[in-house]
């Protein structure tokens, strides 16, 4: 028996979501009185995983490009090899792509968007967010093998320092008719999924030409940028930045909303974020009811001041 975690990496470096999934896996393994095994692809040195309680690492070097079907098959074989009864994945785009395939492969029930360690092991019950963060659902997984998708930034990073024993794993994998022909990804930008801070703006910014202000604020904070639905519908910003019920959910430590009134769909999308700050000219904007801190004021006056003061603060505190 064991707990298996799929620890996603990019160019040999683990994603924060992967380390969070490992932290979660360690908590489950401890509760079950068993060990945590990680599966990685193309990671030269996986010793970092030991920091989060991973006892053994299976590394696959035989697969070069990401392919959901092949990765899912590899995870299935690793789970079988390690007799894993719980398989943990993160909430990254790739992990969410893979998890349903692993679920069918292992005939294992799958709960996604899980926000806390299991409240009970037998029956196996986890709390997951549902209704786009408007509610939580305590979900029982009743199959012998369970799959848990851990929500970003929900469990946090928990250190349990041990030495991870690493070995090469070479499952037998079929080819796939699906191939990635090109990837379009800005390498220098923080993504919404990985960001600790997200700076988001709405129609209050009056036009796409004013987004320099938002990008400057994001730069100071090392934040990702996002936007409201009307802004993406108007074409001011790409769809990939749209936050809300039909866009991206944001589960970040700090969410700063500038010139966003706070429609119910938008507020649902950001509900899992820990601290919310709103800057809006309208004191009646619904966002003020959902925020922790607020400034009633004009973004064009407040944000430049905020950028300037944050630069001073960062200079003193780093």
């Amino acid at each position, binding site marked *: 028996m064991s707990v298996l975690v799929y620890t996603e990496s990019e160019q040999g470096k683990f994603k924060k979501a992967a380390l969070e999934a490992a932290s979660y896996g360690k908590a489950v393994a401890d509760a079950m009185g068993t060990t945590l095994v990680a599966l990685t692809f193309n990671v030269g040195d996986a010793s970092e995983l030991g920091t989060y309680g991973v006892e053994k690492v299976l590394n696959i070097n035989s697969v070069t490009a990401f392919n*959901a079907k092949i990765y899912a098959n590899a995870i299935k074989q690793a789970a079988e090899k390690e007799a894993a009864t719980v398989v943990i994945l993160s909430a990254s*785009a790739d992990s*969410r*792509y893979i*998890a349903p*395939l692993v*679920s*069918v492969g292992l*005939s*294992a029930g*799958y*709960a*996604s*968007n899980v926000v806390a360690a299991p409240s009970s092991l037998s029956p196996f019950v986890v709390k997951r967010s*549902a*209704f*786009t*963060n*408007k*509610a*939580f*659902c*305590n*979900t*029982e997984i*009743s*199959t012998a093998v369970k799959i848990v998708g851990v929500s970003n930034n929900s469990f946090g990073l928990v250190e349990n320092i041990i030495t991870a024993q690493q070995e090469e794993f070479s499952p037998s994998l079929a080819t796939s*008719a*699906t191939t*990635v*022909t*090109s*990837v379009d*990804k*800005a390498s220098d930008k923080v*993504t919404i*999924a*990985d960001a600790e*801070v997200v700076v988001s703006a709405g129609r209050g910014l009056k036009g796409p030409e004013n987004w320099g202000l938002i990008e400057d604020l994001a730069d100071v904070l090392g934040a990702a940028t996002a936007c409201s639905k009307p802004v993406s*519908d108007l074409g001011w910003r790409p*769809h*990939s930045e749209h936050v809300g*019920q*039909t866009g991206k959910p944001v589960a970040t*430590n*700090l969410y700063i909303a500038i010139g966003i009134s706070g429609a*119910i769909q938008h507020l649902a999308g950001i509900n899992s974020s*820990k*601290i919310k*700050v709103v800057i809006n000219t309208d004191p009646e904007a619904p966002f003020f009811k959902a925020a*922790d*801190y*607020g*400034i*009633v004021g*004009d973004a064009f006056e407040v944000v430049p001041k*905020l950028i300037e*003061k*944050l630069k001073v*603060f960062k200079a003193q505190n780093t």
Partner: protein
Amino acid sequence: MKLLVCISHVPDTTSKINFSEGDTKFDTNGVQFVINPNDEFGLTRAMWFKEKQNATVDVISVGGPETEPTLRKALAIGADAAIRINAEATDGHAVATYLAAAAKEGAYDLIIAGRESIDYNGGMVPGMLAAMIDANFVTNCISLEIDGTNVTAVREIDGGKETISTVLPLVIGGQKGLVEESDLRIPNMRGIMMARKKPLKVVEPTSETSETHAVSFEKPVPRGAVKLVDADNVDELIKLLHNEAKVI
């Protein structure tokens, strides 16, 4: 090309979410139901395949008779025929199992579902369905072109997108981007009249196969009142974020 669009019948995005029976059931009282937005983008893209590439488009939903108006709306938008699997959508696995049986029966070339429903947000039905019928699978799909049996799809990834080459049969987890918001269609009177005459077949489900179930629901703890900071005193906000919230 035979195309199937999976339709989930979900609360409108403006709905307030409440629970009944000791927080074990979703309270549908006063809730307006709509086509799941992620499915509607897929349905609209399917209409393009129908009009430009002569595809036939069936729509399918799992649920009781109360889901039929949602299917009729899909027919009014332009789908050719509808299938309702007469079962409660207990979990993603059960829904995928029912859909897989119907998909095999109909021998569809392309199945478009939404990347997730906006009610349970499981995000698992399209992938499970693809695995069950051994079809290719692309989720978070924001662009889809078909040429014969060759497919070019674009998938949104964290921080960007990737272009994927694959072949039919294929299952898609669709979302905004497959078509634009402005491309969505409101059924006109002619469409609504025609939809009444289009076939809506009710199919009894294969055996029950839930792997998970909702034990109980809870709502987020209401947060305290917002702390307002004067617009001339942004230093105060920085202090609060640093000392009190500890997020910077």
